[in-house]
């Protein structure tokens, strides 16, 4: 067993999952390799430290309180509209409404823009249009008085 294999078996060793033959091989390498032995000490040390963690013991009367809790009415389920399906439906409807609203305001904006552009064009070419009217009037006069 080399260093990589030895260290890959740290978990199996901690969880007592090495059979006798592999364990003997693993220990033989560890005894001969100071680097692996140091790595093992750190790995095992953290595991042992974790095992010293203290958690609270159940308080007196925990079982009785739990049994009394069975008598309490079950909490009202969340309103139907809060269920995932309804949230999805409402979300989709909102998205559709926003999309439609967005498209409508874009459309109105474009229409107004077109009207404004025509107005600007007319104002910019007012003189030429007036000239055109004069020329047309003269032309009509000429036609009336050959």
């Amino acid at each position, binding site marked *: 067993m080399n260093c990589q294999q030895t260290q890959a078996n740290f*978990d199996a060793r901690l969880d007592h999952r090495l059979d006798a033959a592999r364990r003997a091989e693993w220990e033989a390498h560890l005894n001969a390799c100071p680097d692996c032995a140091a790595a093992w000490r750190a790995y095992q040390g*953290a595991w042992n*430290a974790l095992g010293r*963690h203290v*958690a*609270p*013991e*159940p308080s007196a009367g*925990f079982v009785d309180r*739990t049994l009394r809790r069975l008598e309490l009415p079950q909490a009202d389920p969340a309103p139907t509209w809060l269920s995932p399906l309804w949230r999805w439906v409402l979300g989709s409807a909102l998205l559709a409404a926003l999309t439609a609203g967005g498209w409508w305001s874009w459309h109105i904006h474009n229409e107004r823009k077109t009207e404004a552009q025509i107005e600007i064009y007319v104002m910019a070419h007012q003189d030429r249009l007036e000239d055109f009217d004069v020329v047309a009037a003269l032309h009509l006069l000429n036609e009336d008085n050959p």
Partner: protein
Amino acid sequence: MRRVTPVDADAQLMLRVRRGDRQAFRELVERHQRGVIQTIYRAIGDAWEAEDLAQRVFVQVWRSAARYQPTAKFTTWLFTIVHNTILNERRRRARRGAESLEALARSGEQTESPSVQFADTTSADPARAAAERELQMRISAAIRQLPENQRMAIVLCRFEGFSYEEIARVLHCSVPAVKSLLHRARESLKQQLRGCY
């Protein structure tokens, strides 16, 4: 006559619970209260809330007893409920941005003591007691900084003696995934607990 193993005893109690037997339910709670409370405590870090959530777990066991199949090991089924309860609690906290009840208790808003008794870790030597408290705080912090699934895997393996296969059933993942979770958790703990061993 066949000897009743503890595992069989749990299954038999659950069969009685399915029929609405409260005495059987009481026995089940007595048998598993410690493991459930301590597992939740290690995930949440709040003794008062751990008891409250543990009660919810057992109430859920009572209400879901009809769905229990004796083919499944009771503790695997029980700790699946524990895991789901912890996940729900985390989601609830994330949604509401609620501070832990521990913080409320410290600020004096929580008047009623959780009356949870820790195992006796007091020592006649104050320096030793302080060192022990420091160690406990470091281990608690190291456990809590683990990602959810790594923490559950490590707690079930180290403190509840679950096999890889049982952890896989609780976490709904494969055995190789459990090995990977445990390895990453141990590597992380090794870094966090440097100097504690």
